[in-house]
């Protein structure tokens, strides 16, 4: 019996041992073999708090900060901590309804549990903030957290500076998950182009959270934390006072304006009309404002200075002359017998403004009097240059010159989404004319018409080319990057490279062009730009525009084009202005340019200019057809919205409007659709393209 029981004691020990071995084996499996638990525990307990650095500040040429950071407050709620508060009083202070209050608190509790703080109201208005701050002690459970927001102290340069907003899921994907949900990213303008420099480097703080996701302390005493590095600042060429003045001048107008310092290529001012206040896209009303602007057919958020396509018209003439001079086809003394019309192609077109002869005895006179025949002829000389064999090769050479001047190609300005304008390829003409065409087909290219389209930036840059007598720097805004690194230098060096595009033109030939432009101001079409004590060189242009509305082709008032630079000797500013549908080049573009030159060079305005400034800034030149177009676009969108969502809230406005009189159509002379002029619909096309991208949002 004893022996038998002794063996059982051994079996009992064995049972103990086996059980322990099984447990230890499982422990070995969990703790040593399986690696996933460490990460799971970290996911459980470690919270990565992203520390956002301050974004870089942007300065103007005089060192004034034109884009800075300010603090705005979010109101957070921790539902579990709300105790004994006067809810009605709170609702009154925050101007919300009781239902809204209940809904928001419940939502917060559902989304983020009741023990963690979640956003109750983001981006408080200053008055809400003040009211809450005074009474915060009465409302346990509610706290304010600051959030840095971009702010534009001069309320100017919206299109240049751009804005930041939360990254979209698509952008996160495109960035290979560099950005995370809730990150802000520059979405336009310099904010976008210099995102890497302005954003700085995000920091990460690792914090320990508990089972209810409350943060309870630092992880590993902050050993793995990464310090955030503030974004670096940008010094720009922008003259903020000039910019503000230019924006004032372009108020209530559609078009673009660019002012460049020819010596550096630095852009002093750039305006697109219609304009908006950049502060509209920060702060509490930003989404409302964004929605409103993106549905506006006038396209306030479109930068027409780099995206508006305009027919240069006569402003192109001095540029065209450069080709003939560089090719050695003419000398400044070259004259063309113009009797008021060009008969080189037999049709007598184009006609000249000056009906009599003798306004094209030499290059200088031809520019001064803006002789159409002369410059048409110069274009044909290059296209039919025997050196190149046939018109297509000749044309390609001419086109190459244009591209060298920055026309028909992207200049590479430091803004996203620049348009390259249009200098058509031979294939376009081949297609239109079944391969058979000659220099008569597109002769008006010589006077900046036909299919030629340029942005205000390109025209201003071409002025720099003339002002500098043969070279330009790629137009750009940023002069210096704070603590510039080698990497930055690589980015910014292209703006410091001089483009010597015209090397075969001697000084005196350039002088003929410049003097011609000076004559335009002295006694030609740009007399309005005369400034006592400053020799201004300029060229006006007037381009016909059309649009198609309600199935009819409508002629719109002409685009007013104006290009200039000053002073004649040692030029310091070059300007290109286009005011859409405003009339003659000199009427609006002229005085606008004059005021800007005065401001920039003299820092004061003469009496006449002060009066002009008053008059121009108050002039409303918004084309009338926009009203009708807006109505149409909105109603079409309302229908589409209704079809998609069965939500008739937008549509009602239009169905009820049937009983009301419709907005009057612009009473412009209707012109039958003309195939040859078909390309001139660019104004409206630009808007349509722009609008096509915009989606209908939620009701504001």
């Amino acid at each position, binding site marked *: *019996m004893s022996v*038998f*029981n*002794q063996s*059982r*004691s051994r*079996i*009992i*020990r064995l*049972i*103990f*041992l086996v*059980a*322990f071995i*099984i*447990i*230890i084996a*499982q*422990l*070995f499996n*969990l*703790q*040593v073999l*399986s690696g*996933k*638990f*460490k990460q*799971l*525990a*970290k996911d*459980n*307990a*470690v919270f990565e708090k992203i520390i956002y650095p301050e974004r870089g500040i942007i300065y103007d040429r005089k060192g004034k900060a034109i884009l800075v950071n300010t603090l705005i407050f979010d109101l957070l709620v921790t539902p579990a901590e709300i105790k004994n508060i006067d809810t009605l009083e709170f609702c009154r202070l925050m101007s919300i309804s009781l239902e809204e209050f209940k809904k928001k608190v419940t939502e917060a509790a559902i989304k983020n549990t009741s023990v963690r703080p979640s956003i109750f109201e983001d981006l408080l208005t200053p008055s809400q903030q003040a009211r809450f701050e005074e009474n915060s002690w009465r409302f346990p459970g509610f706290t304010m957290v600051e959030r840095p927001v971009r702010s534009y102290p001069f309320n100017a340069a919206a299109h240049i500076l751009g804005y930041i907003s939360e990254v979209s899921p698509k952008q996160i994907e495109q960035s290979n998950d560099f950005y995370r949900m809730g990150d802000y990213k520059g979405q336009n303008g310099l904010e976008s182009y210099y995102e890497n420099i302005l954003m700085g480097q995000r920091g990460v703080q690792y914090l*320990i*959270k*508990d*089972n209810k996701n409350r943060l*309870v*302390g630092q*992880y*590993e005493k902050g050993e793995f934390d990464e310090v955030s590095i503030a974004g670096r600042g940008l010094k720009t060429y922008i003259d903020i006072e000039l910019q503000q003045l230019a924006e004032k001048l372009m108020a209530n107008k559609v078009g673009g304006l660019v002012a460049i310092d020819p010596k550096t290529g630095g852009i002093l001012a750039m305006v697109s009309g219609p304009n908006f206040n950049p502060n509209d896209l920060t702060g509490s009303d930003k989404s409302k404002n964004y929605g409103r602007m993106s549905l506006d057919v006038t396209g306030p958020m479109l930068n027409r200075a780099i995206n508006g396509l305009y027919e240069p018209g006569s402003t192109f003439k001095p540029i065209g002359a450069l080709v003939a001079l560089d090719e050695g086809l003419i000398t400044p003394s070259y004259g063309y017998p113009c009797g008021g019309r060009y008969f080189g192609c037999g049709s007598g077109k184009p006609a000249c403004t000056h009906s009599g002869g003798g306004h094209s005895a030499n290059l200088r006179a031809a520019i001064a009097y803006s002789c159409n025949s002369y410059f048409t002829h110069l274009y044909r000389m290059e296209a039919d240059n025997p050196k190149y064999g046939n018109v297509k090769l000749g044309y390609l050479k001419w086109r190459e010159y244009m591209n060298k001047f920055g026309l028909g190609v992207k200049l590479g300005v430091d803004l996203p989404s620049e348009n390259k304008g249009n200098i058509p390829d031979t294939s376009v003409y081949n297609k239109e004319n079944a391969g058979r065409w000659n220099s008569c087909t597109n002769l008006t290219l010589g006077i900046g018409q036909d299919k030629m389209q340029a942005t205000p930036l390109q025209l201003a840059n071409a002025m720099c080319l003339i002002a500098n007598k043969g070279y330009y720097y790629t137009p750009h805004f940023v002069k210096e990057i704070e603590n510039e690194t080698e990497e930055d230098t690589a980015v910014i060096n292209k703006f410091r490279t001089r483009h010597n595009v015209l090397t075969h033109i001697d000084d005196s030939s350039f002088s003929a062009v410049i003097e011609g432009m000076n004559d335009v101001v002295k006694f030609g079409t740009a007399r309005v730009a005369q400034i006592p004590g400053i020799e201004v060189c300029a060229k006006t242009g007037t381009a016909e525009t059309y649009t198609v509305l309600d199935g009819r082709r409508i002629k719109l008032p002409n685009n007013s084009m104006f290009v200039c630079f000053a002073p004649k000797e040692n030029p310091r500013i070059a300007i290109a202005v286009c005011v859409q549908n405003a009339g003659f080049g000199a009427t609006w573009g002229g005085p606008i340019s004059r005021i800007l030159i005065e401001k920039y060079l003299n820092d004061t305005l003469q009496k006449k200019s002060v009066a002009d400034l008053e008059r121009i800034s108050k002039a409303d030149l918004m084309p009338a057809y926009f009203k009708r177009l807006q109505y149409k676009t909105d109603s079409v969108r309302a229908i589409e919205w209704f079809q998609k969502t069965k939500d008739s809230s937008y549509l009602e406005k239009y169905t009820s409007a049937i009983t009301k009189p419709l907005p009057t159509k612009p009473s412009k002379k209707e012109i039958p659709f003309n195939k040859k002029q078909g390309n001139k619909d660019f104004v409206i096309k630009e808007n349509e393209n722009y609008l096509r991208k915009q989606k209908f949002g939620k009701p504001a």
Partner: protein
Amino acid sequence: MTQRNPAISKGIDWSLVWIYILLVTIGLIAIFAATYKEGDPILQSFLKFRTDYSKQLYFFFGGGVLALLILLTDSKFFSATANLGYAIGIFALLLVFPLHSNIKGTNSIIKLGAFNFQPAEFCKIFVALALAKFLSRPETDFSKSRSQLIAAGIALLPGVISILQSETGLALVYFSFFIVMYREGLPSVFLLIGFALAALMVGTIVISPNTFALILTGLAVFMIYIFRRQIKRQRGLLLKIVLIWILCVGIQRFAVPYVFKNILQRHQVERIYDLFGIDNPYAEKKEGETAADAKKKKESGSQYNVRQSKIAIGSGRLFGKGILSATQTRGGFVPEQRTDFIFDTVAEGFGFAGCVVLLGLYLLLLFRIVTVAERQRSTFSRCYAYGVASVLFFHIAINVAMTVGLAPVIGIPLPFVSYGGTSLLTFTIMLFILIRLDADRQMVLR
């Protein structure tokens, strides 16, 4: 307990005492790690009776006093009062029914002033003593099934009462006394039947009912084929095999589902199925509840404990994170960590190495108790020692197995380490009665 008093210290097994002190100390550290909050004044908290670790420390001191009293008691006292003690224990258990206070889903706790009192916990001592007393009676012939039945009754009666108090975990502990009975000559066939029943139960859970019935039938046919010669000679064998087959299928088909549906509570069934990673087929689906909903609910419910416990243990790796850097512990991700899941604290803080040391200590303790048991001259002492070893083994094995996901979650504490006064004092008393009996091992107690 001091060496200076030869009367008390004589014959004491110091190795057991040291293992005991070590384990309680580990427990104190673990409870401290699980409940310490950043910035608590440690010394002050330890001295005041406010935090869990300070309470446990005072329970430890209280345990020391009790141990001293036990060592001062004559060892005959324990055998003499065994039956009386058992009666008191059962009475206390029954007292729970009218007097219990409702604390976290259990009906087994009596509130006495500031203390919570759980009779089912300390009743183990009386059962161990009473069983030892019964088995050591000269007139008991344990080879008779009558005696075996009485012994089983003594062991299981408190268990049955505990089940009625929805303390299934504590009830199961009483099954561990079968180890004592096995040592004292319970036929091996019972052990085999126990294993067979367990296998049958696991099979029922894991394998689908029809397949499992087929497998059982196949097994029966196979047995008949193997024993075909013997069957020819002895018809009764065939009948036996068929009867066993019917019994097995019956259990698989009817008994197990009946137990799951009617005896066990829903969450207990849930935990058993979670252990095997199978959806509970007895769960009543709520209307409109999709499978995904149910899964989500499970993850936050019954599976949450074990999942977080596994994360805590697994993330400890080989050498652990250090006692106060253990994020799972400090963040309170494992529910009931200071009590039933205290093992996680050790595993996360000290890693696999720490676990092996702790389990090694336990194994040493168990083996030492078996050794002590085998050197007793008196059957009473031996049976009691085996009783202690069995109860400790069951607690340790099931508790740790539950934290690593090898056993369903039943709320039983880890001896000497888990927070809880009743539990610590119960095990202290159990162990020191053993030490006291062992000190008088030359004496024959009845």
